[in-house]
């Protein structure tokens, strides 16, 4: 029982990281309908920016973390604006677009490798004393990760619900040509979606590196499929679904780790495959729901 509650704690931390990653992934997918397999590299780049500013330049960690997140945001925007969108505007086919994102992932990963080598890096944050909360153990760092994730989700909720920009984003995600015809500047919205997505990817990457302790050039892309699992679980293109997906995948994989650590990814991947096969539209077939919200 104790072990289960303890694992539930780990699950909540993983879910927090996943939530940021999955919502960012799904937001970008919803608006551009692009399955971006280079998303993991945005996470890695953000972690490296944080490392560089914190360890090499001696910035305060939280400042460095902000720098990393902004780095992720800019990278995501630049790739979206100058690589993906031109291809999409040309009418590049869906499968060719997947190749474009794979190519981008390979380029980013290997360029990072040229500078960083194949070694592991650490933010060198030092050990911390765990805090007990309801039978679960968290380090202050993990509490911070959960706090950031909750703040992000709340912020997104307010953005979607109450701001014109958020509603416009969801309308574009729902039906971009309809959105354009009612006067929503979709190009700007798409740009904003790339930035928001990159920001979330960056935060997820940095949080993952904090939680794991070390990272290398591969760590973002190896986590990507678990993020995709969470996003798909909650129906791709649906931010609220992605949050639910993150919770389910995060907790389920940590619980499975009680039995064997090898099972962690197997459970996440298993869920991904099952959802893609059985209900590719995800748990909430949320698109119509979304349209109603915007109209109402």
């Amino acid at each position, binding site marked *: 029982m104790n072990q289960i509650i303890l694992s539930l704690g780990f699950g909540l931390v993983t879910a927090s990281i996943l939530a940021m990653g999955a919502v960012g992934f799904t937001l970008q997918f919803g608006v551009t309908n692009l399955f971006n397999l280079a998303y993991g590299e945005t996470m890695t780049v953000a972690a490296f920016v944080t490392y560089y500013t914190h360890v090499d330049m001696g910035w305060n960690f939280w400042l460095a973390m902000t720098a990393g997140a902004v780095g992720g945001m800019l990278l995501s925007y630049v790739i979206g604006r100058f690589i993906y969108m031109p291809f999409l505007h040309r009418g590049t086919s869906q499968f060719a677009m997947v*190749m474009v994102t794979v190519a981008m992932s390979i380029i980013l990963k290997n360029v990072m490798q040229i500078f960083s080598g194949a070694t592991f890096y650490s933010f060198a944050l030092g050990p911390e004393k765990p805090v007990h909360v309801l039978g679960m153990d968290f380090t202050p760092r993990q509490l911070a990760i959960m706090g950031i994730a909750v703040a992000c989700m709340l912020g997104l909720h307010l953005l979607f619900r109450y701001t014109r920009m958020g509603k416009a984003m969801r309308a574009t995600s729902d039906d971009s040509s309809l959105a354009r015809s009612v006067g929503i500047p979709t190009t700007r919205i798409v740009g904003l979606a790339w930035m928001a997505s990159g920001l979330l990817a960056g935060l997820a990457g940095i949080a993952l590196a904090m939680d794991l302790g070390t990272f290398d050039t591969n760590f973002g892309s190896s986590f990507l499929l678990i993020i995709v699992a969470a996003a798909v679980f909650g129906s791709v293109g649906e931010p609220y679904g992605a949050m639910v997906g993150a919770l389910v995948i995060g907790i389920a994989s940590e619980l499975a780790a009680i039995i064997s650590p090898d099972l962690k990814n197997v459970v996440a991947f298993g869920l991904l495959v099952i959802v893609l096969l059985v209900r590719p539209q995800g748990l909430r077939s949320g698109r119509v729901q979304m349209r109603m919200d915007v109209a109402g």
Partner: protein
Amino acid sequence: MSAAVISYLISLLVYLGVNSIAAWALNLQFGVGGVMNFAFILYQAMGAYITAVLTLPKSTVIGDQTYILGLSWPWPLPLLGAAVAGGLLSLAVGSFALRPRRRDFQATVMLVVSIIAETLVVTQPHWFNGNQGLYGIPQPFAARLALDPNGYGWFFVGLTSVSALLVLLIVFRLTNSPWGRRLRAMRENADAIESLGTNSRAESLKVYVVGGALAAISGGILVEFIGAWSPAAWGTGETFIVFVAIIVGGLGNTFGAFMGALLVLGVFLELPTYLPQFASANTEQSLQAASIGVLILIFLWLRPQGIFPERRRKLADQVPGSTGAGSQADTITLATTRHNFTTGADGDASDALTVRDLAKEFGGVRAVDGVSFSLPVGKITGLIGPNGAGKSTALKLIAGAEKPDAGQILLDGKDMAGWPSYKVARLGLIRTFQHTSEFGRLTVLENLLTAGPAQPGDSIGGALLGKRHARKRQQELLGQAWTLLEEFQLTSHADLYAGQLSGGQRRLVEIMRALMAAPRILLLDEPLAGVNPTLRLVIEDHLKRLRDEGLTMLMVEHELGAVERVCDSVIVMAQGKVLASGGMVELRKNEEVISAYLVG
């Protein structure tokens, strides 16, 4: 030449053979069939493992390796076993991975499968000796021939060449057959090929299995040459290299795939070893990988069709008697060959199709709300109504493109409600699309041929028998297609890609293609939209003639003038319901109909 140079040349040739087979296999799946196999390397690896354990003696004999089987089979049985294993594995994976409709979802599932398989091989060391991998795999005939290393090398080059040529023959026949044409059509537009009676998931699975078997052979030859195989040899990144080869070479082009394999091997894998080293080995490797990524982007931007684009298959000069007035075949035979209706239990003998209480809801909106009507045999029934009335949805429900929530669709006394579109099409109910759905990178003639029923070369077995086997039927269909092209005045465009035609011409292609399928009932979704006035009249005349020949039609159309000229009776829909039906003349006076149009 020194012995070292010769030995290097030998290994280059063997690698070229192996990589070519791999490229051909992936090209068949992805270039021709549009199936994105992101687990490709898994099948090559599986072939290598199975070849190894079929060639090696029992695991206990060699000592510190553990593995399954160990059957000491003689060449070429291990390769055949590998092909079977690769095919079976593809069948197992493909039967679920090909379920999602989006190709990127399929690719994601395959990527996951590939990663899970890698984990399994590592964590189950009794299968293929885990992370250490298998080694000491005897080379075919090496012991018996007792040649010097390079002499044996040349012998192995010979074995590889024979295998590669065999694979080439298989791939060539499959690609250039009616079955290959169907695969290319599926790649271009899966919905459209389904509407012509093809179960696209089944065809995808077939090409996935064939490709998986061929990939396994390439892995088998590789392991026979190098004598060892371990998880390090097949990272998921290796899949990408094969994709690069076929994209650069030219998707869908068999020769292009070979040249792509040569190029990738030469320029990216071998050339760097001759360049002066300017950085650490790791850095050079990263640079190499990054430049492969850049190359992909450059190609997809500047030349997405590759260096050797898919060949345009010109067929016009094969049409029997195409150069004269020899259009002896008449469309009459087309329309009436399948025109025999059996009446349902309580159906009227004069109705070809009966729809009862059909309903479909999209997220709370009742697009079709309890619609009932019949299509009289040999008549054109119009389906009109304001935007959003549910006309197109009703047509899609009948054609099987959408599943109805409730209601019956009766043909021959059978309720087809909920059938997939390919099954509906096989009963002779053929539709056209609101948005033109031509197969863009097939020629106009090829577009028409894809719809032709009963083609001997339209299966893997038939395709392997070669062109001669399929020629007779092909000639018949070409004759029929040419007659249609003459009537629609498109003979000069016969050998152009359908994607190059104007919107109106593409619509004609679609109508002709539907007619080639010898329909009993034709469902036309706005056949006149985007067609210029002259062509409209041609289409209208043609529809009337087909009607006179006995073809039953349902036509969704906005232009009321055309409906009045063409349709025998008209059904008016508004807000998902049938508002009225009858002749156009009476309907024009119907207050309800008028207000529905004005309000809608």
